[in-house]
């Protein structure tokens, strides 16, 4: 197995000093090159789960292994794209992409590599712009290039297109699918959009909330490109909706 997550638990102390369980007995594994979406209502612990896989947050118990190595710290074998682009505003686009590889490569090689990945996200023309000079969708593409330039075996994406408008999002879906096809990365993609998860992934892991558990794990066998198989997608959508419905009701009843 490429990625193995075994009985992961995560507890936080609430501000009232009460222990709350955010993730409960999360176990799943991923094959190399698989595109997995994790779908769940907001607050179910998706970001926490991804953060543990990235090595940014320690788990309370349970383990994460990538290619047999136990994950404790962040590492360049795992690239992360956050919901917000998180580009460094004091660096230009290309300097941002060079950031993770600056130390291990000569200036020339680093530049070439960064340019290659900027080309992949179709932003070569904007290499010398500053982040505030380009749109949100472009910034997120730079963030993707910056994660890919380290050549990680695992790409972690936390609702990367959540803050973008529908049109931009659709275009980025197509680009991401191409990147995935060309680079053969294993991708863990977090979303709360059923459509997005069905459109992109090989597998959808549906999470429930309070505590965060895995409800079901659905394989998506629709051939790509999937735009041509609208009916199948819609059928799956309603199937997943059934699982999520009770969870969303749970959140709503809690909020009112």
């Amino acid at each position, binding site marked *: 197995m490429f990625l193995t997550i075994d009985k992961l638990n995560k507890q936080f102390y609430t501000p009232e000093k009460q222990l709350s369980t955010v993730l409960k007995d999360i176990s799943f594994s991923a094959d190399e090159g698989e595109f997995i979406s994790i779908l769940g209502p907001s607050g179910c612990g998706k970001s926490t789960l991804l953060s543990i896989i990235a090595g940014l947050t320690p788990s309370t118990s349970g383990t994460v292994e990538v290619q047999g190595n136990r994950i404790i710290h962040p590492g360049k074998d795992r690239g992360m794209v956050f919901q917000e682009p*998180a580009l*460094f505003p004091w660096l230009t686009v290309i300097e941002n992409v060079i950031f993770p590889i600056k130390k291990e490569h000569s200036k020339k090689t680093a530049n070439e590599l960064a340019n290659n990945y900027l080309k992949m996200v179709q932003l070569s023309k904007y290499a010398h712009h500053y982040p505030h000079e380009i749109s949100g969708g472009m910034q997120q593409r730079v963030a993707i290039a910056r994660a890919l330039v380290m050549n990680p075996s695992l790409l972690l994406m936390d609702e990367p297109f959540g803050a973008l408008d529908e049109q931009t999002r659709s275009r980025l879906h197509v680009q991401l699918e191409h990147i995935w096809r060309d680079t053969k990365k294993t991708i863990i993609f977090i979303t709360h959009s059923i459509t997005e998860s069905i459109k992109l992934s090989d597998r959808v892991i549906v999470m429930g909330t309070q505590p965060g558990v895995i409800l079901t794990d659905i394989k998506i066998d629709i051939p790509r490109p999937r735009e041509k198989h609208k009916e199948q997608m819609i059928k799956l959508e309603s199937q997943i909706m059934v699982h999520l419905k009770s969870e969303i009701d749970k959140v709503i009843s809690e909020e009112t």
Partner: protein
Amino acid sequence: MKTISKRILFFAILIGFWSLGSALNWWSEVLFPSPINVFQALFTGVKDMTLIYDLIASFRRLAIGLSIALILGTAIGVIIAKSKTADDTIGAMLLALQSVPSIVWLPLAIMWFGLNEKAVIFIVILGGTFVMALNIRTGIKNVQPLFIRAARTMGSNGLDLFRRVIFPASVPHIVTGSRLAWAFSWRALMAGELLSTGPGLGYTLRYASDFGDMSLVIGVMIIIGVIGSIVDQLIFQRIEKNVAKRWGLV
């Protein structure tokens, strides 16, 4: 009307009123000389180089004092930002020290260093250090956690993280800290010179006043004000604006 023309017009009216008042003897020429006399005093001072030497002397002290203040302030700021114990102790003391005008230290400084330049430079350093330290602390503490998380996923940590992310992310606060440090140091310098020895602008001000040369007193006051606003507006505010834009703060 554009800001600049409004300003010019305002100062023209002000000087016009001042000339008029002097010409009509609304006030005593001895206590409040006319603009012409003030201009003449300045002209003489520049021509015989005394004011130029004063300026150079003052700026030399400022440069020494402010550089030390910026370096020292940055070092202290980093320490109190990184260590909670240091923040609870040194940080609290800085806040107290910051509220004491640094000129208050002059009697002590004169005892320690003698009535000379060192005492003045000491006051200048005190003027700038605390405000710089407090701003550096704020800057480092307010770095977006997202930047740090992102950098860590890219293999950065420890000193590398500090050098490549935390420090540059704090630049807006570093610039603000420097601007305030300059302002405090400049005021401390003038006060220190006024009360101790020359050469220097502050010293010449007192010297002129002792000899009843009110034209020169007002002339030097104008120089002090003009330098203060030029450095603040033309240099620091401009840098601050550019940085804020680049760092995405506006």
